[in-house]
């Protein structure tokens, strides 16, 4: 019968009682706990209390908590888990930040590419429109029945000797086109295109060169007579009834396409 074998000292119960009945054994155990009640209590000194609690505190520091199996590992384990979780969070956070930055860069590049694509699409559309317009104009001015007339600088001392132009008249539509090259924009007044007939001139329209255009066109209510030829004059008024300014270009060689 030793104290270390069983602190509840069941040996004592079995030594002093019949012992086989668990209920009686528990009752006898409590009875043993009651027996010291008849003793006169001895109050422990404060120093003893302090000594006992200090001894327990030393044991607690030595193994904290002492009696719980594996308990001493709980705090380090919890700390390790917390550290791992923190490190993992930081790593994930860093990685997430990098990925977000990369994603933002990719989005910016994608937006730029979309912008370029949109610009190219617009350019392509513009080019297609222009191409379509030019093709349509070309088909018009090269259709059978179209009258073509080259215009050259007029007079012995032409004001613009380097200028020249081609005039196209589409009789079916009453539409005319003038393709001018080397014609300097006027410092004053406007260039006006005329159909010249024996009965008199017929106003074609203003030759617009202000936007650098080389091709200008207009439409007439009826096909004018042009048995004399075609001319471009420099006029002060945009709607003259007759040519009053100097002749810049003139042509009388008309060719009707067939």
């Amino acid at each position, binding site marked *: 019968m030793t*104290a*270390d074998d069983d602190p509840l000292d069941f040996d004592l119960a079995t*030594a002093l009682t*019949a012992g086989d009945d668990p209920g009686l054994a528990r009752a006898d155990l409590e009875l043993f*706990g009651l027996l010291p009640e008849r003793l006169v209590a*001895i*109050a422990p000194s404060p120093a003893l209390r302090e000594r006992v609690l200090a*001894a*327990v505190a030393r044991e607690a520091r030595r193994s904290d*908590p002492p009696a719980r199996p594996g308990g001493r590992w709980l705090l380090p384990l919890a700390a390790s888990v917390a550290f791992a979780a923190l490190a993992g969070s930081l790593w994930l956070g860093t990685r997430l930040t990098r990925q977000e930055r990369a994603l933002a860069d990719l989005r910016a590049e994608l937006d730029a590419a979309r912008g370029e694509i949109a610009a190219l699409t617009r350019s392509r559309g513009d080019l297609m429109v222009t191409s379509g317009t030019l093709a349509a104009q070309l088909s018009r001015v090269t259709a059978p029945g179209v009258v073509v007339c080259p215009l050259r600088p007029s007079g012995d001392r032409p004001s613009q000797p380097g200028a020249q132009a081609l005039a196209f008249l589409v009789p079916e539509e009453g539409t005319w086109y003038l393709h001018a090259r080397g014609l300097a924009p006027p410092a004053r007044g406007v260039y006006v295109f005329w159909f010249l007939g024996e009965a008199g001139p017929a106003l074609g329209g203003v030759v617009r060169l202000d936007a650098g255009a080389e091709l200008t066109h207009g439409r007439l209510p009826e096909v004018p007579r042009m048995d004399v030829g075609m001319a471009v004059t420099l006029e002060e008024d945009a709607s003259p009834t007759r040519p009053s300014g100097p002749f810049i270009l003139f042509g009388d060689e008309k060719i009707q396409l067939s």
Partner: protein
Amino acid sequence: MGNDPRNRPRTSAEAAAEADLVRRMAAGDERAVGVLFDRYAAKLLALAQRILDSPAEAEEVLQEAFLQAWHRAAGYDPARASVGTWLVLITRSRAIDRLRSRRIAERSADAARHEDPVAHESPRAVRLVLDEERRRRVETALAALPGEQREVLDLAYYQGLTQSEIAVATGTPLGTVKTRTLLAMKKLREALHDEIHELIG
């Protein structure tokens, strides 16, 4: 120091609260040790002094008992014993172990001498810290036992003697010792029925 004269729990709720103190000890709460010390140290010190008849050794045993309780708190099972009984039996075991060690040392130096249980009455009657009603009932129950039955219990409980050793020490047949023991326990069990069941809950 706050020694509570009514240190034993009277209700199952009090018993549960005391069991919770032991669980707190198991979790490393040193304050729970202080609470149990204030509640039981006076009685345990009296028990150790009663067994060892040495104030210095009784204090050492008390310290050993609380250290042992601290280490074994996780193994405490409220279904097996109340906290007070658990502490009493720990203290008694430590004191009996020390008493046996002392006897072995004395026998090696001298012839074995008989211990007189009556001589273990505490010479120092300090202030009364026991629950008077319970103390009186236990005292009454023990006093009601025939002398030879009380002697057997005293030798077993305070001297840590086995029944065979009691038979030798008292010159009584072993069978008689066993009979006296069983009768004493039966009478005490009946006399202290209420107290026991308060502790069992």
